[in-house]
């Protein structure tokens, strides 16, 4: 005799939640959610081995030396100044030096340069900021110096962007940004670390 048709039993899915919970916990444990932040820099191209050590002569009025000794103390030297200073004044000094608003004869020379979108400008693009460290300078001191110098440049770029285009540097289009970068190029040079007071 044919039995009455049985109802298909439903699959028991009560454990699916547990399984997916375990997967979730696995992913929570093995992944990291921290967003990585940092100070972006670009290294200079490697030295060309075929070329002689072509020491580019830079007029001394164009250079500002920023040195860090092994205790992390900061020393600034240009044609007008030569002393140990606190990190807090570095930004303003670097800005004044790069800008040379009064065309002061002991700060970087200014010359006329024609820049796209800006026309004839009076720029100090020959300036160099030379950062020198000792081998045992603490890294955070060096990092603070880099941070302050980058801050000085970005403040200067913001100023000129506001003056010429009425907007901050970050909100400009790429070609206007390039023009601003020509006005204030980042010339930070890093020499080989000096071995102050260390027997060679």
């Amino acid at each position, binding site marked *: 005799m044919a039995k009455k048709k049985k109802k298909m039993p439903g699959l028991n899915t009560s454990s699916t*939640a547990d*399984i997916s919970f375990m997967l979730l916990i696995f992913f929570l444990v093995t992944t990291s959610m921290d967003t*990585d932040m940092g100070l*972006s820099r670009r290294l200079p191209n490697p030295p060309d081995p075929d070329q002689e050590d072509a020491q580019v002569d830079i007029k001394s009025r164009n250079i500002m030396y920023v040195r860090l000794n092994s205790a992390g103390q900061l020393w600034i030297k240009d044609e007008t100044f030569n002393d140990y200073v606190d990190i807090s004044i570095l930004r303003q000094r670097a800005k004044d030096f790069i800008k040379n608003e009064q065309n002061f004869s002991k700060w970087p020379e200014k010359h006329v340069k024609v820049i796209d979108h800006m026309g004839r400008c009076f720029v100090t693009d020959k300036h160099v900021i030379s950062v020198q460290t000792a081998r045992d300078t*603490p890294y955070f001191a060096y990092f603070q110096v880099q941070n302050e110098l980058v801050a000085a440049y970005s403040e200067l770029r913001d100023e000129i962007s506001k003056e010429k285009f009425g907007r901050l540097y970050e909100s400009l289009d790429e070609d206007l940004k390039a023009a601003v970068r020509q006005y204030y190029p980042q010339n930070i040079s890093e020499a080989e670390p000096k071995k102050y007071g260390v027997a060679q």
Partner: protein
Amino acid sequence: MAGFKRKEGREMVEMNTSSLPDLIFTILFFFMMVTTMREVTLKVKFVVPQGTELTKLEKKSAVSFIYVGPPTDQLRAQMGSGTRIQLNDRYAEPREVMDFVASERKGMVNEGDQVISIKADQHTHMGYITDIKEVLRKSWALKINYSASRRN
């Protein structure tokens, strides 16, 4: 009073949990999207310096990390407390950075986008950092990033 007589055989209504797995799966997928796999086990400990002019690292796939700092507490007994450089899962010498850069570069779609992020302890001596930078220059990995946290 005989007004409330308990009815016999009435069962508690069960909550329908059939959508619970779907819910959890949604959370799971969310986490899989927003997080990245931890690729290496850290063998050095470091506290990165603090700064204000920081940028976010974009294009995670183009970023390679170099860790610099003293060995972790578990490894200190064997390795001492001097500064070490970690590439992938092991300690390395500065000159090995060149091979590391080359091998990291292999899998990249656009080699010019390669960024090396230096995660160094803030009390590291600059000598190590300078050595690494010299090797990076020689291997044409010029875009670098000093890892840092935001200062308020």
